[in-house]
């Protein structure tokens, strides 16, 4: 049974639907990557999954439990964690306080988890007392992911974790994501840098117009000439 | 329900209510109530421009009303010969001259960067010049004020026709709005509310304390009327004449506003209100348009305020209880339907009638409660029960605001959404 199974999701903001039947399924400990042109509904899919917009049709099953339209604060308790694309840190709070806020729902001791985040992202350890808003873009992204890891999620949702980062940081973030996944955390991420992301994906989903276009392993999608032509090659067509 | 049917129904109900009051309390009372309500309706029209059209949050209404009322007094109150024959005008002229020179120097200094003065020095010089000007003017004004208060009481007016006073009152209120708007319109609504509240308090403090100019707490009366006074015509006829004047003003304002609202200008204003970002993206100068709205609104508020205070025949700076009356007008606008001129007029009439009637009702209720309490529990009512009872009305205004915002945010006569194909 897959860890996450979203079936035929419809939904959007207010009246207009953005999602017109998206289906996503990934197993535990896998990396899933959602790619597609702008406006395809990639980020919206994550938001629908995380209860940030209303799903009008379809079902979401996580870990054998139906979680359709469950409030975010409850989903955190179910083992899901979400990193928004922007505004994903508490800017006036220190790095360590950001991590503590990630562990807000925990009542037990989480000191070891903070140390674990510092192990994943060594630069943060030196900056632990610094306000997160003063960090560089890449380091802020590390804080954001670190914050989301503090609940020990079984599935981590990342919305364009490398958007706006320099190539050096992009590579570093991808490396860290793989390391997190190796430690037993499933990943579902939306990415603009489709080739790099699919290269590390167990499962890839190509969305367009709020629907699945292609689904397969990352390698399959990269090898598919149709996918390459329409969605990976001339990015300019869809920019 | 069909909107025009709804309008007709509501207005018919209102007419019945007013007719009942006429029958119960007599024509003189009824006409007085209607005149006051019509003045409030003019003020409400001004506010609905600001709030309903442009989304501007003006809680300093009473400040604008007060300044307009004062201007009316200054323009149309009879000339005070004692003042003009004394040294007062001469001394005031000197103070004005000092002020003009000081302001000119300050302004020149504030632009001195153009001739190569460093910025820091410029700011310092400007501030020093402003401070010196302020102290110098204050130094000349103080003896002048003392002299005027001792010899003449206050400076009196210019004895010009009342309508000129009203117009001038509107213009001054508009100018004050312009100055305020320049400062606050770029800010978020909360800040604007706070700033307008502040300006109202300052205007009130000024009018109350500048005895040489306004007679302060001694009050000025009787104010001249634009129509023959009750002494000449009797209450009903003279008040009816006054009502005719204000009614004509409402009709003229209403027609002008409706036309403006359906013009391209009005369309642009709605676009700005409903979607500021996209209107800005279309290259509209939002703050400029809003400033226009704010100034026009304050002009109308000033006009209505001047008419209202003239009707009461007494100018008493301490009577401008800022918040209660301000929010009485707010209730009129939001209950009537913000953004709908007819709604503002209807709301003003209805709310004012209820407001006026609530006084006897509150006292009636409390007197009964007092007797009941005495009889049943031997409760001894406090001596100031009447003033306390009237405080209930403040409570009711507040309650109405919260209830309307929650359950009928569009008001009784909602704004008609204009559709374009």
């Amino acid at each position, binding site marked *: 049974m897959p860890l996450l199974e979203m079936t035929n999701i419809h939904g959007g903001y207010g009246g207009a639907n953005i999602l017109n039947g998206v289906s996503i399924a990934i197993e535990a400990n896998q990396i899933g990557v959602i790619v597609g042109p702008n406006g395809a509904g990639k980020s919206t899919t994550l938001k629908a999954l995380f209860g940030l917009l209303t799903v009008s049709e379809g079902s979401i099953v996580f870990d054998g439990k139906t979680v359709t339209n469950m409030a975010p604060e409850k989903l955190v308790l179910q083992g899901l964690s979400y990193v928004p694309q922007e505004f994903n840190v508490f800017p006036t709070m220190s790095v360590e306080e950001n991590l503590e806020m990630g562990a807000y729902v925990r009542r037990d001791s989480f000191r070891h988890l903070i140390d674990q985040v510092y192990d994943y992202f060594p630069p943060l350890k030196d900056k632990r007392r610094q306000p997160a808003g003063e960090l560089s873009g890449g380091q802020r992204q590390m804080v954001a992911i670190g914050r989301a890891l503090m609940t020990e999620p079984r599935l981590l949702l990342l919305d364009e974790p490398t958007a706006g980062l320099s190539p050096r940081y992009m590579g570093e973030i991808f490396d860290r994501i793989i390391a997190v996944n190796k430690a037993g955390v499933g990943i579902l991420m939306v990415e603009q840098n489709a080739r790099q992301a699919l290269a590390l994906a167990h499962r890839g989903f190509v969305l367009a117009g709020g629907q699945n276009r292609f689904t397969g392993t990352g390698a399959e999608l990269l090898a598919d000439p149709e996918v390459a032509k329409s969605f990976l090659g001339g990015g300019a067509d869809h920019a | 329900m069909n909107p025009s049917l709804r309008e007709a129904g509501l207005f018919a109900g209102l007419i019945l209510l007013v007719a009942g009051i006429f029958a119960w309390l007599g024509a003189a009372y009824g006409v007085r109530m209607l005149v006051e309500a019509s003045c409030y309706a003019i003020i409400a029209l001004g506010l609905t421009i600001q709030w309903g059209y442009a989304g501007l949050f003006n809680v300093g209404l009473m400040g604008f009303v007060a300044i307009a009322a004062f201007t009316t007094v200054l323009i149309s109150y009879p000339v005070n010969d004692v003042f003009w024959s004394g040294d007062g005008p001469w001394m005031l002229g000197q103070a004005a001259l000092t002020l003009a020179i000081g302001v000119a120097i300050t302004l020149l200094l504030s632009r001195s960067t153009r001739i190569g003065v460093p910025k820091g020095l410029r700011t310092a010089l400007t501030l020093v010049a402003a401070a010196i000007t302020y102290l110098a003017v204050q130094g000349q004004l103080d003896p002048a004020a003392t002299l005027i208060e001792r010899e003449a009481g206050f400076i009196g007016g210019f004895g010009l026709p009342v309508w000129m006073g009203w117009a001038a009152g509107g213009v001054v209120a508009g100018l004050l709005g312009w100055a305020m708007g320049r400062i606050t319109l770029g800010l978020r609504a909360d800040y604007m509310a706070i*700033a307008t509240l502040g300006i109202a308090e300052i205007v009130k403090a000024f009018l109350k304390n500048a005895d040489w100019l306004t007679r302060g707490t001694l009050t000025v009366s009787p104010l001249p009327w634009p129509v023959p006074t009750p002494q000449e015509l009797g209450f009903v006829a003279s008040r009816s004449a006054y009502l005719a004047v204000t009614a004509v003003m409402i009709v003229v304002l209403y027609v002008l506003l409706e036309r403006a609202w359906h013009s391209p200008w009005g369309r642009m204003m709605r676009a700005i209100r409903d979607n500021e970002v996209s209107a800005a993206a279309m290259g509209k100068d939002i703050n400029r348009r809003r400033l226009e709205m704010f100034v026009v609104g304050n002009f109308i508020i000033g006009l209505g305020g001047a008419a209202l205070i003239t009707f009461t025949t007494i100018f008493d700076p301490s009577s401008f209880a800022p918040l209660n009356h301000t929010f009485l007008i707010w209730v009129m606008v939001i209950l009537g339907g913000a953004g709908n001129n007819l709604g503002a007029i209807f709301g003003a009439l209805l709310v004012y009638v209820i407001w006026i009637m609530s006084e006897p009702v509150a006292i009636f209720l409390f007197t009964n409660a007092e007797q009941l309490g005495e009889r049943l529990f031997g409760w001894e009512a406090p001596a100031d029960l009447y003033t306390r009872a009237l405080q209930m009305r403040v409570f009711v205004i*507040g309650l*109405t605001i919260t209830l309307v915002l929650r359950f009928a945010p569009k008001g009784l006569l909602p704004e008609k959404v204009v559709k374009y194909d």
Partner: protein
Amino acid sequence: MPEAGLLAILPMNELVFFLNKVVIAGLIIGSVYALGAVGVTLIFGILRFAHFPHGDMMTAGAFVALVLLWMFPGVGAAVGLPTAFVLMPIAMAVTALLAVGLDRMFYRPMRKSGVKPVVMVMTSIGVMLMMQGLLRLFAGTGTRQLYADTDDKDIYRIPLGGRDLVITEPQLMLFATTIVAVVALHMFLTRSRMGKAMRAVSDNPDLARVSGISIDHVVRTTWLIAGALAAAGGTLLALDVTLKPDLSYNIILPIFAAAIVGGVGQPYGAIAGGLLVGFSETLAVFNWSVLLRPMRPYLPEFIEIPAKLAFVPTEYKIVVPFFILIAVLIWRPTGLFKGRVNN
């Protein structure tokens, strides 16, 4: 004794007068503003609207203290402090609950239906009018004393050569309470889980929500703190002067000025802002001629010292916070401590 010589030259009389009229008076009114402004700034940071009934909440707190005073008149004498001060913690608790109740009844339904911030401000003004009406209905419009007959208002005089430095018991209690409140608030916001969650919501409410922070809990805590501090400020002000039901209009403008000067959403800024506004007021209405007069012998002949030389006549005290407010809004809208302007 050279020191004594120096002291003799210094116009001690006038300096002490200055200390009494400006420093102490500014500290007192500044502390009251600070206690109010902290609540306003927290509400602004978490709920994003200007809370107009805050002055009335302070008055309500003081009236709760008054009612408690009637109920337990002897408590103060037993401890040796004014009864109202001893009972103040209860008044704070009651007012805190009142604040939460007001939120439940009026603000939360509006919040849930997602209205614009400006409608929240209107609602808060409606609540302000209701509170005012009720306060005056039950308490009348007269002035009352928050000192029971059994309490005595101690006045401490510190001799400083000539004139005495005067400070009263309620003023000392006000300083003490303000300091305790500031330290406690600091500890709460930087050390406790809920305090940090409040800062998180103020920083980024959406992220706080996806982190699993319950916005409802944070909002409730905010009202509890704001209500308690408002009650403390109102009670102590009433102890220092008198208890009047129309505190609200006179105090809300300086409080807003303090919150905005300090940077909206910044509790420490609000405290600094409160003191700044308080000092500005006392400095502005101070008669500087008093300080100039002893310098008469050293000044050239042609300068005459006017009998009254104040920046602002006392009647126009209200313009001081207003001008501070406008100046900050024009030149530094984020406040001196970088608060938020938008959202």
